[in-house]
């Protein structure tokens, strides 16, 4: 397979978030690591070393925002515009969305971070189904406000958003019956 770009080497899209790059890097280290069950019988030691070197080179460039920008320009990759946030809590590094906190905005922010709903569900113990309802704004299926607020706060903190104010902002946009 022709692994032309650094993104190909790590097996990610050019729009990959830093979190996705980290995950892909760890995956490739395991794939080509000493004693990897999946590759030792396919590649000889020299090819394994080469594969590891390419992974390191790719990660070195892509994890550094400045180097990545230069590389993307050279290769003609365009980055998707980042969803704007403002810092909310200097202690935890949590941020706030500067656009209205709708289900769609939350989903875009989550996808930009490269975090799956399953992962949030595992961290927050909120079922994937409810997380989907939150993102899809399926008002009739959302739980009563007292639970919904808790779910939203868990969801927000899993994404590095300030939990309380994010939950308030989402609930303020709900039709009166739910809020």
């Amino acid at each position, binding site marked *: *397979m022709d*692994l032309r770009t650094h993104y190909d080497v790590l*097996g*990610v899209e050019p729009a*990959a978030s830093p979190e*996705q790059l980290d*995950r*892909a890097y760890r*995956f490739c280290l*395991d*794939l080509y690591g000493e004693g*990897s*069950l*999946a*590759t*030792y*019988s*396919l*590649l000889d030691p020299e090819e394994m070393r080469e594969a590891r070197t390419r992974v390191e080179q790719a990660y070195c460039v892509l994890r550094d925002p400045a180097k990545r920008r230069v590389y993307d320009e050279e290769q003609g990759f365009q980055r998707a515009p980042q969803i704007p946030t403002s810092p909310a809590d200097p202690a935890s590094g949590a941020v706030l969305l500067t656009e209205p906190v709708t289900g769609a905005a939350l989903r875009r922010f989550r996808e930009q971070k*490269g975090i*799956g709903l*399953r*992962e949030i569900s595992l961290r927050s113990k909120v079922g994937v189904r409810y997380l989907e309802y939150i993102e899809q704004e399926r008002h009739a299926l959302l739980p009563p406000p007292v639970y919904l607020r808790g779910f939203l706060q868990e969801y927000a903190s899993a994404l590095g958003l300030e939990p309380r104010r994010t939950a308030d902002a989402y609930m303020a946009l709900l039709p009166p019956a739910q809020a």
Partner: protein
Amino acid sequence: MTAVAPLPDPPPRRQIWSLGGGKGGIGKSLLTASLGWQLARMGKRVVLVDADLGGANLHTCLGLPAPALTMGDFIRRRVETIEEVAQETGCPGLRLISGASDVLSAANIKHQQKVRVLNRIRALDVDIVLIDLGAGTSFNILDFFLISDVGMLAVVPEPTSIENSYRFIKSALYRRLRELAQTQDVRDIVESALDQKNPWGIRTPLDLLGVVEREAPGQSDALKEAIASFHPRFVVNQARGPADIAIGHQLVTACMRHLGIRATYAGFIDYDDTVWQCVRQRRLFMSAFPHCRAAEKVSKLARALLQNDGLALPR
């Protein structure tokens, strides 16, 4: 105006699934039995076929005594139809065609007999035919694998099992490519490819394609198409933790990058003490302990396979 009678709905297509993997003793038969049991519980009409013609013991996995009639009776024409050797298993919707018990003649069935068996299996009136392929990469086993709509490879997280599964994949693919070769030259290239010291330096299907492109350019498109439509599915058995589970994803990536084969990761089954305790008691864990970890993963696997779905690497 002539009224046009609506066409009747075509009958739902029967699917052939098979489970191989090259190495013996990694739980293929037990996995086949469990998967068949689960599919039947989900309302599918299933026939299990024990194609481990030399060492058939799928019946034992299901907790059944050695059957009176086996595939061998059908092969030797002691019975008329293959339906006659399909015995009930006690689980509604699940029947079993047991492998032949006398080793030599059945494991080495002749080409004509094999074609008859394959044709009759294709004609069975069920939803899913699930074939336990047994160990090895003999032509009989590969042919059963190649006629399958869903070809699964069981692996355990051990070097020997993974080596054998790669060998199985290559053997099956090269057998298909050999059938497609139009000239003796290309047949020779394909046949030599499995030999590590072949004169062409071919190590992977991608290398093979390169050689054919150079030597017989007119034939490479058909081979390319066959490689592109070859989709083995991995099932990781006896997974003891996240690192074992991740091996399935690594195998899929390694197949794509280094063999040029698009495999999928159908699912994994946890290592579970309950399973071997049941094996010793000749009981199927799916019915004895339907909520044990392994049983839950088997039902997840069945659902994924029915939906033609696989485990995706978290991105």
